[in-house]
């Protein structure tokens, strides 16, 4: 068998741009004239963006208080001491006093922060049953095996909500009091405890089981609360729209944190005289100290924070953008110098030729 160039053979591939790899291609010849300005422009853009981010983050005020109660750190140390080695710890109250010399620009958000708390631990993270939390009655009676050892109570009743995450629900509570005039009375500042979780979470993802005879309590009949809980899940709040699995404190807690140090939103302050922020004056935060953290060297903090378009105070992005922008420009200069030197050399070579 011979193949000639002219005759088309039986196995000859199609002579198309695709099969012959002759597709029109974009072959940009990035000369220094394009690459260098690109670097400089990118650098400048990054620096500009970085400055914006940095200042917006810097403009946010934060007020932070560590109420873990290590000895000699304020009056919460009494509670910490009292709870030492006792389970469950006794209910204990302490307070944090602070005064604002000027208006704390609003809207103000109240966060609690835990450190050294590994919500991202794999075994902890899987210890939940999303079917149960989405209100599936079958899952309510038969929680997923991942929940063990918080799957069934000692009495053999299914635990609702099951799992380690739910069992370790953060149960400190706070109330904010404002002293408008010196030596005047403390007036309670309304804390908005709703709208602190993702809308999708408490509307779609977390759902209560169907009511039995119009009662949530009956729906949960035959289940046991997690062992650490003083009261069942349907009594988490007196507000019927904010109790059971859709209780927003619970929902916020169930959205586990990515890192061992994390903040979770406790309340928003936006009612009455406090829409614009916290006015100047003395304040007291009453803390119900329940949650033990000293056993694992953790810390508990309370944070008042304002918000910008970029969210909370976090200088990382701003600084990173500034650094990368500078790096771009620096690299651009290095490339420029190298290019010029190389071109000189090239010219010499060409002259020699």
């Amino acid at each position, binding site marked *: 068998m011979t193949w000639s160039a002219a005759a088309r053979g039986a196995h000859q591939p199609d002579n198309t741009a695709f099969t012959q790899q002759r597709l029109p291609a974009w*072959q940009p010849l990035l*000369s220094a004239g394009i690459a260098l300005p690109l670097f400089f422009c990118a650098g400048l853009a990054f620096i500009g963006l970085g400055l914006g981010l940095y200042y917006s983050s810097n403009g946010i005020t934060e007020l932070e208080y560590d109420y873990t109660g290590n000895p000699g750190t304020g009056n919460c140390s009494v509670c910490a001491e009292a709870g030492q080695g006792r389970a469950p710890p006794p209910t204990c109250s302490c307070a944090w006093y602070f005064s604002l010399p000027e208006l704390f620009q609003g809207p103000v958000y109240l966060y609690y922060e835990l450190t050294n708390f590994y919500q991202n631990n794999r075994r902890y993270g899987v210890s939940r049953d*999303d079917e149960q939390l989405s209100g599936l009655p079958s899952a309510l009676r038969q929680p997923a095996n991942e929940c063990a050892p918080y799957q069934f109570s000692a009495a053999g009743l299914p635990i609702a909500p099951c799992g380690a995450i739910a069992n370790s629900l953060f149960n400190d509570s706070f109330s904010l009091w404002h002293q408008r005039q010196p030596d005047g009375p403390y007036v309670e500042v309304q804390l908005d405890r709703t709208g602190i979780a993702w809308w999708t979470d408490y509307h779609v993802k977390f759902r209560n089981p169907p009511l039995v005879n119009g009662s949530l309590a009956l729906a949960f009949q035959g289940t046991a609360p997690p062992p650490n809980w003083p009261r069942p899940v349907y009594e988490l709040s007196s507000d019927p729209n904010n109790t059971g699995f859709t209780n927003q404190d619970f929902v916020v807690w169930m959205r586990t944190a990515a890192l061992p140090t994390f903040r979770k939103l406790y309340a928003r302050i936006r009612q009455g005289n406090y829409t614009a922020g916290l006015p100047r004056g003395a304040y007291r935060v009453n803390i119900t100290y329940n949650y033990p953290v000293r056993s694992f060297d953790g810390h508990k903090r309370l944070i008042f924070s304002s918000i910008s378009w970029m969210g*909370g105070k*976090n200088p990382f992005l701003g600084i990173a953008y500034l650094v990368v922008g500078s790096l*771009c420009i620096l690299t651009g200069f290095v*490339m420029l110098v190298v290019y010029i030197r190389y071109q000189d050399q090239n010219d010499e070579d060409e002259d020699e030729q």
Partner: protein
Amino acid sequence: AAEKFVLVYVFQKTEKVDFSYNKLADPKFSFYDQTLVEAVKTGDGWVHLFFLSLSLCHTVMSEEKVEGKLVYQAQSPDEGALVTAARNFGFVFRSRTSETIMVVEMGETKVYQLLAILDFNNVRKRMSVIVRTPEGRVMLFCKGADTILCQRLHPSCRSLGDVTMEHLDDFAIEGLRTLMVAYRELDNAFFQAWSKKHSEACLSLENRENKISNVCEEIEKDLMLLGATAIEDKLQDGVPETIITLNKAKIKMWVLTGDKQETAVNIAYACNIFEDEMDEMFIVEGKDDETIRQELRSARAKMKPESLLESDPVNTYLTTKPKMPFKIPEEVPNGNYGLVINGYSLAYALEGNLELELLRTACMCKGVICCRMTPLQKAQVVELVKRYKKVVTLAIGDGANDVSMIKGTFWGFFAAAHIGVGISGQEGMQAMLNSDYAFSQFHYLRRLLLVHGRWSYNRMCKFLGYFFYKNFAFTLVHFWYAFFSGFSAQTVYDTWFIAFYNLVYTSLPVLGLSLFDQDVNETWSLHFPELYEPGQHNLYFNKKEFVKCLVHGIYSSFVLFFVPMGTIYNSVRSDGKEISDYQSFSLIVQTSLLWVVTMQVWPVVVAGAFQIALETTYWTMISHFFTWGSLGFYFCILVFLYSDGLCLMYPNVFQFLGVARNTLNLPQLWLSLVLSVVLCMLPVIGYQFLKPLFWPVSVDKVIDRIHHCMRHPLPPPIRTKVKHASSRRSAYAFSHKQGFGALITSGKTMKGKPKKNSLLFKK
């Protein structure tokens, strides 16, 4: 190997000449110059004489099994070509006996009486026949090397001779092999006298060769110039060019052939494996171990005297008796040498203790010819090189006897050449059917190696590097996360992302890369064979490159973990709600990862061709489609996997409900993504930029030249003609051995077929 030789006078892409006037013409013969045919038809005496001389002055045997279908058996293909040419122009050499030559001259059968053949040899470089024409004239026709013949011309031909020499020079520059053709009319008496002298010389017992050649000199003078011929060596199209190109790409070529030595050497010269400028050509033709060893060692002593000393590194290495799979390092000779070894000697040389001698000597030579080889020996030679040299071997051949070296499973226990290439030719399909690659012309080897081979290597290396990189970047993020998740083996990504990452999200860009990438297009890679070299030295993917991928992967994973971590650390959304939860973090990291890895295709594509802020990338529509398509596809899948319906249907399987909706619209995510991409690209671009300046490889210079050419386009590269030195332009027109002349005149060969001859005569 079968080579075809065709007589060529003038190359013009015009109509083929119609030879229908001549019934005996060879139908495969094509010719383009109309004027010559016209001259023949009008009966120009000189032209007729010229062709007559071609049809008479040779030692070709003819065979006519079917009437009108002549088959010529020529000692050298050139001779065959010349006689065939004469045949087509109407001077058909039909048959010969020991005393006659039958020629059909323009349809008219004439029988010439063959009086003498003064045969070719290396010293004379010409041959002559003396015939008596039917009219009774005694004529001497002579053809031979122009340098020799022009000294023996009659003074009256001086001016014609000068013109002819000019033409011959032109032909030689074209790479054609030239001959001069002349005749002399002899006086009957003079011839008789000479004939007596000649027979005496032939019968003398002493110094016969000399005497004969002296006698011949006497009669071959005062010749009348008839013309010149030029023969193009139609090995196949582009063989010498291909070999020159492959030589430039530092590919060493060995010819393993069953042909006899002279033919093999001729072909080696013709296709540039041997060159005139070579310092020496060693011929190994010993008949026993010791002679062959001596020949090989003396050859090596000339090429590299120190390689015979005890202190030579290779010798010391060999005396340490290294374990079996050892490789002999490269040795550099002091010049250009060639080696010729025949199959008989090779049988000894391939035996245990001599094979290393053979290999070391042969590998120092620029060209190696092994002739008279059996198929098994071909495989053995390939095997020998493969075993002791750190090289990749490619065997190419067209015959059934090449199968053993091409296929590499001769008798089931050989593993011969790494790559086998078959040429589909006149010698059947066996070679083709057993090869890895098959094509119809030798010169396609150039494209196979320099274009497709090179692309393939580059693509493979880029693919491997990229594949390792993207998986390092993907996996090692978990390493950093372990420090923050209590070493609890928590995965950073959604389980579905892990399942889809290699399969769906990142497979298309890397496929596009490894199917369509062309760092340099075919024109340039053919134009600069040097570009082929990195592959030979394993430059594009080796341990070092692997470590680079690893380091790059570690760096990228570092960026990919810590930039999102810094972004979400103690951070919240602009409505105060959560951003630092595990699921959002997963989404940020995996989206950044995908962007970084996909964008990384870009510098990977550039990698080979980055030069001083100049880069050539090759982005076809398909690359665009694959790259951007797979990113878009990712977001589509994301929306689907995180959709309410799916998550509510299987809450424990699809746990990321609402994460896409809540997190993809955050400026933090996009800012951190851009930051990750830029941070991952910056060092790569910087490295690509600085590498050719600080660690230049020879290829970089070539690429620089290519860029230079692209900016200042040259006229399209002209096909370079192989320049032949005039010193040997005629020397190879004949086989180097004594011709058949004596055999023909003795009539011995004719005895076998008297019937046939007589039959022919009757017609």
